[in-house]
């Protein structure tokens, strides 16, 4: 009976025959590790790009979004727990959507990108990689929405086929990661730096939870780290917590807390700081860091105003705004 050691994420699960990794979907069958949800997503939707949230990547375009069961984190406040905290054999619904068909359907539906999201696409790595390669061949971009708890070697290989990432940085505190998410902090920070080095477009999200990670000093440290290690132009999203799953005892994040977090991040030198899950907040929109011109107005996931020039600059002061604004920026102009 051959046990196997998974090398995908820092958990390094040693899995006996007939067992699954901590993520529930990588199973040892006959001494070989199987990705049991390959080509078998349980969630398939078309969402606006702003929902990922990706604000500086192909804004206003529909993105074909998929996920399978399973996850290598176990966040107490997971909104998608019915997908992430279950194995493939526990799911009530599944699509048969192998990589070639996934790319074909995404293109037929008019999407310019595919997002691997909802649970954590790290755990369905092989499905992502094979689909992403084919997507590029069809001039579709690939977006990876993740908690970034992944080892360096698989991440570097994956970055060759991924164009944009929204990564959670849940707190700047290892104890929080252990207690609330069942993970550790350092591998996440290392992964974010790797993504920057590999040149993928990166946006970072921090879900602000009252009493747990809303301390202004921690937020300041987090923002300074993002500024110093990832760059001042890296968009940072502060998202409002809503009671979920095994964390129903805490109230939603007060808007004042999010406002304060946004101020701390701007004071740390970050140029694009957003507030998420608060409809109609000024922090939903993009402003020129140089002269404050409203560049992209948003209400929820809808774009209400768009003023960027064709080459991604402020129309009034010509300041280049970091981002990937057109597919042509990735693939060149259409032949």
């Amino acid at each position, binding site marked *: 009976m051959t046990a196997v050691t998974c090398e995908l994420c820092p958990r390094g699960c040693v899995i006996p025959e007939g067992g699954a990794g901590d993520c529930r979907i990588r199973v040892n069958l006959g001494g070989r590790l199987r990705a049991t949800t390959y080509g078998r997503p349980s969630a398939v939707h078309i969402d606006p790009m702003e929902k990922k949230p990706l604000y500086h990547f192909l804004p206003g375009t529909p993105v074909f979004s998929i996920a399978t069961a399973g996850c290598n984190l176990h966040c107490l406040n997971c909104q998608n727990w019915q997908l992430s905290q279950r194995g*493939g054999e526990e799911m009530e619904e599944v699509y048969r959507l192998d990589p070639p068909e996934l790319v074909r359907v995404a293109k037929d539906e008019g999407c310019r990108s595919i997002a691997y999201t909802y649970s954590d696409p790290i755990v369905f790595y092989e499905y992502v990689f094979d689909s992403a390669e084919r997507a590029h061949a069809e001039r579709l971009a690939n977006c990876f929405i993740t908690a970034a708890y992944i080892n360096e070697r698989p991440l570097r290989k994956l970055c060759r086929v991924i164009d944009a990432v929204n990564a959670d940085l849940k707190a700047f505190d290892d104890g929080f990661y252990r207690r609330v998410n069942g993970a550790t902090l350092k591998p996440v920070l290392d992964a974010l730096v790797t993504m920057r080095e590999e040149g993928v477009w990166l946006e970072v999200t921090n879900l602000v939870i009252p009493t747990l990670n809303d301390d202004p000093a921690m937020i300041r440290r987090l923002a300074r780290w993002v500024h110093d290690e990832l760059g001042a132009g890296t968009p940072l999203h502060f998202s409002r917590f809503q009671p979920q799953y095994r964390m129903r005892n805490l109230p939603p994040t007060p808007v004042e807390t999010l406002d304060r977090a946004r101020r701390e991040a701007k004071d740390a030198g970050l140029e694009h700081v957003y507030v998420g899950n608060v409809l109609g907040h000024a922090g939903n929109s993009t402003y020129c860091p140089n002269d404050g011109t409203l560049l992209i107005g948003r209400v929820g996931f809808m774009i209400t105003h768009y003023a960027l020039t064709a080459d991604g600059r402020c129309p009034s002061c010509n300041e280049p705004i970091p981002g990937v604004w057109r597919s042509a920026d990735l693939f060149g102009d259409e032949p």
Partner: protein
Amino acid sequence: MYQLRKIDLRQSRLPNIHNRELRFLALVLATCCLIALQLGENLRLQGLAGSGWRTVDLPALQRRIDAGDLSDHEATWYHPATEQERRASGAGQQP
């Protein structure tokens, strides 16, 4: 005068327990032992599964794979576990 009844401890006897009562006691103890064994086994399984891997409903999984609803696509990024890794994780013990 109120007379106290003197009790001679040298002559006291053990409580008069019948055979059928002993059988009932034995039955109760046997049940408690069975429950303790079951609880202990559950705790052992949970302790194993908490050390980096999980048990899975293998017959259900295999049925789904055979029907094509799930996949047996071989994963990348793994290697056969070394003896040291097996010992450290307790993965040598089967559920």
